[in-house]
C-alpha cells in the first residue's frame, strides 16, 4: 500500500538524486574528458574535422595502432623532463607548507590567547595583505631579487609563497585556537607545564584537524600557484604549473599540446588522492568532551 505521502517522498528523492547526478556529471566532465583525451593523439583530441574522433580515436589508431596511447605522458615526463618540474614542486610545496604552518600555529596561538588590542590590529593587517592580488607582491620584489642575484631559485619563491600564504594560515589557525577553551592550557600550566609545553602536549594534539585542514589549503595555494612561480623561477627551476604553461605555449610542434594535457592529468591526480585521504580529518569532533558536554 502506498499512500500519497510515500509517493511524494519518492518523487522528491528521485528529483534530488537526479539533480545531484546532473551536478556530478557537469562538475566531473572536464576532468573525465581531459583524462580520456590524454591517451589520444592531438589530431583526435583537438580534431578540426570531427569532434567524435576524440571518442573513437581514429587518428590514434592510424598513428600508433591502438585506440589509446601513452605518447603524451612519455613526451611530457621523459622527453621534456616534466619530472624535474614535479620535483621542484615537491620542494616548493613542502617547505611552503612546513614554514607557514610553523609560523601559523605559533602566531595563531599567540594571537588567540593574547588579550591585547594589537592582536586585533595584527589580524586586520594580515587580512589586508591577504586581500592583495599575488602579482602585486611579485612586481615589487622583481628588481631587488635581480639586484641581489636571488632571482630564479627555489628558496626565493618559497619565501614569497610563504609571505602570500601566511596571513591566511594565521587567520585560519587563529580561529581554530579560539575554539579550544582557554581552560585547557591553563589547566596544563597548573599541572606543571610551561606555556610552550602546554601548547605542545595539550593544544596541538587537539588541534590536528585544524592544522591538517590549514596545511591542505597552504598546499593547494603553493601547488596551484602560477603568478609567482612563473615570474620568479628560471626555466630549469620551474614548477609544474609554469611547465604546463610552456608546453601549451609552443604549439608549433605537434604533440606538445598533448604533453600539456598529459601533464595536467599528472598534476591533478595527486590532488584527488590527497583530498580523499584527508577528508576525514577535516575538523571538529575532537574537542568534544574537553569541557562540559
Amino acid at each position, binding site marked *: 500500500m502506498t499512500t500519497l505521502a510515500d509517493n511524494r517522498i519518492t518523487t522528491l528523492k528521485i528529483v534530488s538524486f537526479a539533480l545531484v547526478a546532473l551536478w556530478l556529471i557537469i562538475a566531473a566532465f572536464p576532468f573525465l574528458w581531459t583524462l580520456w583525451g590524454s591517451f589520444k593523439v592531438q589530431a583526435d583530441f583537438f580534431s578540426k574535422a570531427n569532434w567524435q574522433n576524440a571518442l573513437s580515436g581514429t587518428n590514434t589508431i592510424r598513428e600508433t595502432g591502438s585506440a589509446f596511447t601513452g605518447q603524451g605522458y612519455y613526451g611530457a615526463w621523459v622527453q621534456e623532463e616534466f619530472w624535474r618540474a614535479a620535483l621542484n614542486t615537491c620542494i616548493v610545496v613542502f617547505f611552503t607548507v612546513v614554514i607557514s604552518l610553523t609560523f601559523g600555529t605559533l602566531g595563531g596561538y599567540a594571537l588567540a590567547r593574547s588579550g591585547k588590542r594589537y592582536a586585533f590590529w595584527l589580524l586586520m593587517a594580515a587580512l589586508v595583505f591577504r586581500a592583495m592580488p599575488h602579482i602585486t607582491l611579485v612586481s615589487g620584489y622583481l628588481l631587488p631579487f635581480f639586484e641581489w642575484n636571488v632571482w630564479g631559485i627555489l628558496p626565493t619563491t618559497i619565501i614569497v609563497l610563504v609571505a602570500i600564504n601566511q596571513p591566511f594560515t594565521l587567520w585560519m589557525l587563529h580561529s581554530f585556537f579560539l575554539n579550544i577553551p582557554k581552560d585547557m592550557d591553563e*589547566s596544563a600550566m*597548573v599541572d606543571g607545564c610551561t606555556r610552550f609545553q602546554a601548547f605542545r602536549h595539550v593544544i596541538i594534539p587537539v588541534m590536528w584537524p585544524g592544522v591538517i585542514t590549514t596545511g591542505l589549503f597552504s598546499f593547494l595555494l603553493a601547488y596551484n600557484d602560477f603568478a609567482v612561480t612563473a615570474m620568479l623561477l628560471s626555466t630549469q627551476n620551474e614548477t609544474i604549473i609554469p611547465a604546463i604553461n610552456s608546453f601549451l605555449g609552443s604549439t608549433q610542434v605537434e604533440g606538445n599540446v598533448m604533453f600539456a594535457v598529459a601533464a595536467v592529468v599528472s598534476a591533478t591526480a595527486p590532488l584527488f588522492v590527497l583530498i580523499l585521504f584527508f577528508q576525514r580529518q577535516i575538523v571538529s569532533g575532537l574537542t568534544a568532551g*574537553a569541557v562540559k558536554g
Partner: protein
Amino acid sequence: MAQIELRNVGKRWGDFVGVHDFNLTIPDKEFLVLLGPSGCGKTTTMRMIAGLEDASNGDILIDGTVVNGMEPKDRDVAMVFQSYALYPNMNVYENIRFPLKVRGIDPKLHDEKVRRASAMVELDDFLHRKPAELSGGQRQRVALARAIVREPNVFLMDEPLSNLDAKLRVSTRAQIKNLSHELAVTTIYVTHDQIEAMTLADRVVVMEKGVVQQVGNPTEIYDRPANTFVAGFIGNPAMNLIEGQVRAGVFTAPGVEISGLSAPDGAATLGYRAEDASVVEFGGHINAPIYSLELLGDATMVTVRIGQTLVNVRADKSFRAEIGDAVSISVPAGICHMFDGQTGARIEAQDAS
C-alpha cells in the same frame, strides 16, 4: 605545610577594578570558600593565587615566599576548573597521570599514584575511557583525581559543582567534604552558591564588586552578617530587609512597628530571618495582607508586602489562609539585625540581650 597570605592584593583592567585591596591569611589545612555573585572578583582572586592572572598590586605569599611573577607550575598548586578542562585526546588514566608526567616524577610510581587517586574518587572502572564517553559527574571526578594525584600544597577549586545537576551536586559536595578531610590540604573553593559555602567551609569570604564584605566561619556569617549585602545574600531564603526609621528605640515602616531596639535615631534597615519570626493571631509587629503563600512541605512560607519590598515568614505547615487575608507577624527585637540606613553596615546591639 602551606599557609597562604594575601597582602593588599588588587587587580585592575584599565579603569575597571576586579579585586580591591584583598587582605587575608589562610592558615594551613583550612578550607576557605570565596563566595559572591558572579563578577564579584572571587574567581580573579583564585586565578591570581594560581598564577594564571598577575596581581596589579600587593603580594601573594605561599609558605612565606612571595610568588608574584612565579609561573603556575612553580607554585605547587592544583586546580579544578569549572569546565573540568580535561584533555580530550587522552583517556582517564592518562589525564590523571599527566601532572606526574610533566613534572618528571619517577615513572615507576605513576601507576600506584594514579590508581590511588582514581580509587579515592571511585573512577577505577573508567580508566580506559575517553572524556567524551563520560557523564558530567564522572568528568568532574576525573578533574578532582587529576588535582589530587600529585599531592599539592594548595587546592584551588573554581565552581566545581556548577555544571552538575542538583542531585549530583549534593552527593559530590559530600564527596568533596570527605576528600578534603582525608587529604587535609589548604583548599580555596570558589562558588556563588551559599549552601555550598555554608556546608563546606571552615571560613567564608563574602565578596561583592571586588571588595571583601565579610570574613568569618559559616555560623558568624549567618548569625551576624556584617552588612545588608551579606544579610541579603546568605540564607535560604535570604534575610528579610525592611527600610524604615528608628526613633527612641522604635523602628517604624509602613505596617511595621518594632520597639526595644538599641539603634541610634535616624534612617535604618531592619533585618530578620523568616525562620526566626512567627505568625501570631493578633498583636504582631508586622500587620499586612498576605501577598503570596507557598507550601514547602515542612512549612508554609507567607509573604507580605511592605512598601516596595516583599518580606516573608515561616509559618507552621498546617497554616492556611487566602491571599489578601490580613496576617500578623511577630518579630521580637531579639531576632532583629539593625543596619545603618546609609552605609548598610551592621549596628551592633549596645547592650547584649
